[in-house]
Structure formats: C-alpha cells, structure tokens
C-alpha cells in the first residue's frame, strides 16, 4: 500500500515537473518573435546545406546543384533578363504625363532601395510591397496601374533590383502589433497546405530544396525573393513576385488569390524578413 502511494506521488511529481518544463515553451511558441523565427529559419538551411555559402542561397536551385550552377554562370554573360532591365531603366526615367517620374515617389530617387521592400506602413497598418508602391506611384501621378503579373511591372522591378544588387536584405518590423500580426500571418500562409495537391510553400521549399519536382530543382525558401523578379525559361519571359505566388498556388491546384492580396503581401514580408542580411541578387534567371 505504502509502495503504491509512493509510486503515485512520484508519478504526480514527475508529471508536475514535466508540465512546468513544457508550459513556458508552449507560451513562447505562441508569442510572435520574428527575431527567433528568422534565426531558426536560417539555421535550418545552414545546417541542412553546410557546404552552401550563406550568400549563395539567394541563387536558388543553382546553390543546390553544381552542374546547373555552371550552366547558369555561363548564361549570365548574356543574361535573358537584359531586355527587361533596359526596358525598366527607360520606363523608370521616362516622365509621367504630369512631368514627374518614379524617382519622385521613392526615397533616394528609387535607386538602391529594393532591399528595404516590403515594409510595414504604420499609417495604413499593412505591408507595402515594391510592386504595390510602384502602382500607387503611377496612380498618384494620374497613370493607370500596371498588371502585377506582366512584363511592365517585371521590367520596373528588375531595374530597381539591379540598382540594389549585393545590398543585404534589410526588412524592419516596427514595434506595432499589426506588423507582428502581418509577419505571423505571412508565416501561417507559408506553412499552410492548400490545393488538391495538399502542398504548402514549405512542402517544396523547406522540405525538399535541391530535390527534383518533375524536371525542376526546387529552390530553398531562404533568400528565394532576393532574386526577384526572375526570367523563367519555363515562362519564356519575366515574372514578378506576384506572378510567382499565383503560379505556385495554381500548381498545387489552389485557386490563386488576387495579386497583392493581404496574404501575398504578408508572406512576402515573412520571407523577406527571414532573409535579412542575404544579398539582393535580382533580377534572376531560372530554368
């Protein structure tokens, strides 16, 4: 009888100790902590691919496969995005009908600032992406907005990315609960399975980078947006970040959201923040 009581008390004690040890962790896991999330995210990739130089992750599938990397490096001598880059530069400097230019809408005349996008606009209470800011600039100057998934937007962002090449991604999350909520919402979107294929963004870009999905080699999620916009041989043309999200959704057989939906803006915020410190490499070229 005494032995049974001792056993019962011992079990109860062990259960209480286990609860005391695990409960703070549960609370911590539910608290939004972008710094810890980004650290864990980066460490996951650094440990999974110890031979990949940290700054090389922004080169997507090329960081995962030496043969592809060599082909890409040769292609970079005459990069397929060059036409878009030239067009973007011209568009960027061509005045609107009112005489103003894109430079009037952005800090530092829009040069070398891509690494700070997306940002959290405390006035609006939402994430503002570069594509969104460009269209808002157009509308503020009496011009019609561009499609978020077509060549004009890709050309403009290609030029702006080019002026930031090599600069480390520098996304800030202000001390504002709405900004933290946007980050958390982006994280949730990234990990949530959707579509008939039951895939999340993470299914491909966290669980399987370096693996093939049909003929393609999957890029790691770390630094995946640093190369945007991209020329994709599969598309025979340029693609914006919006186009990338829309296409990913379609490929999982999920109906894509409207470009620049809050979810897309937030997932861009999340993915860009966790890539802080990695260089901008856009515009990129992908198979």
């Amino acid at each position, binding site marked *: 009888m005494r032995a049974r009581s001792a056993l019962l008390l011992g079990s109860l004690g062990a259960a209480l100790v286990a609860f005391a040890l695990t409960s703070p962790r549960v609370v911590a*896991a539910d608290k939004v902590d972008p710094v810890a*999330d980004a650290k*864990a*995210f980066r460490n*996951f990739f650094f440990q999974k691919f110890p031979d990949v130089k940290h700054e090389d992750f922004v080169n997507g599938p090329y960081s995962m496969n030496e043969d592809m990397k060599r082909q890409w490096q040769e292609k970079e001598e005459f990069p397929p995005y060059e036409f878009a880059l030239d067009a973007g530069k011209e568009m960027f400097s061509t005045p609107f009908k009112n005489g103003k230019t894109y430079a009037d809408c952005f800090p530092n005349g829009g040069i070398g600032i891509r690494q700070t996008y997306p940002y959290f606009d405390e006035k609006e209470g939402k994430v503002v992406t570069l594509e969104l800011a460009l269209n808002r600039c157009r509308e503020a100057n009496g011009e019609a907005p561009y499609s978020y998934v077509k060549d004009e937007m890709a050309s403009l962002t290609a030029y702006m990315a080019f002026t930031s090449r090599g600069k480390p991604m520098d996304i800030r999350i202000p001390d504002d609960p709405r900004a933290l909520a946007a980050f958390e919402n982006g*994280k*949730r979107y990234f*990990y*949530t*399975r*959707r*579509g*008939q294929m*039951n895939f*999340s963004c*993470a*299914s491909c870009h*966290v*669980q399987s980078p370096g693996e093939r999905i049909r003929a393609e080699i999957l890029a790691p999620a770390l630094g995946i947006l640093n190369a945007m916009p991209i020329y994709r041989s599969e598309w025979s043309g340029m693609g914006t970040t919006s186009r990338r999200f829309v296409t990913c959704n*379609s490929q999982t*057989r*999920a*109906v894509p*959201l409207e470009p620049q939906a809050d*979810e897309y803006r937030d997932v861009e915020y999340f993915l860009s923040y966790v890539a802080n410190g990695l260089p901008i490499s856009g515009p990129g070229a992908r198979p």
Partner: protein
Amino acid sequence: MKLSLPLAMLLVFSLAPAARAANEADYKAAYATAEAASKEAAGMRNQWTVTVSALAAARKAADGGDFDRAVAASKEAEALAKASIFQAISEKEAWKAMEIR
C-alpha cells in the same frame, strides 16, 4: 438446378428499382449543393481549381442536355469543395507542425 442462377438474377433485376436517367431537376439540385459548398470554400479563401473545373463541366454537360454527366460532375465538385473546406479547417492548427522552430 442449372436454371436457378439465371432465374435468380431475373428475379433480382425485376425487383430492383430501375435506374432512371437524371433530369434537369436532378442536375439543378446537385449543382446547387455543389455550388453552395464551393462558395463556402471560396469564402475561406481555400478554393481548389479542380472544383471550379468540375462545376464548369457540370454546366457544360447540362447545356448539352446530358444530365447524367451533369449530375456526376456536380457531385464530384461537391466532394472536392467539401475536401477543401476540411483542409482549410484542419490547417488552422495543422500548419504549426510544419514550422521551423
């Protein structure tokens, strides 16, 4: 004895209710149910492309007067929509299991 099997089959078939071809009312009912489920999924921002395709196939079959096919496609759309709703509900918590911590 040899005749007993064919006779039994005849008896079974004669007692079984005759399968009738679907009519427009059947299609409209099946389509309305599927469409409601599809709208629910869309409201959860978790619509599947295959649901939309199945609904379109149902409409096309009905326009051509093939109500059997229209009802089948509607039922397929309903099943797909319900699966997408289930996915949206379960992923409200399940996504956390994939998170890098």
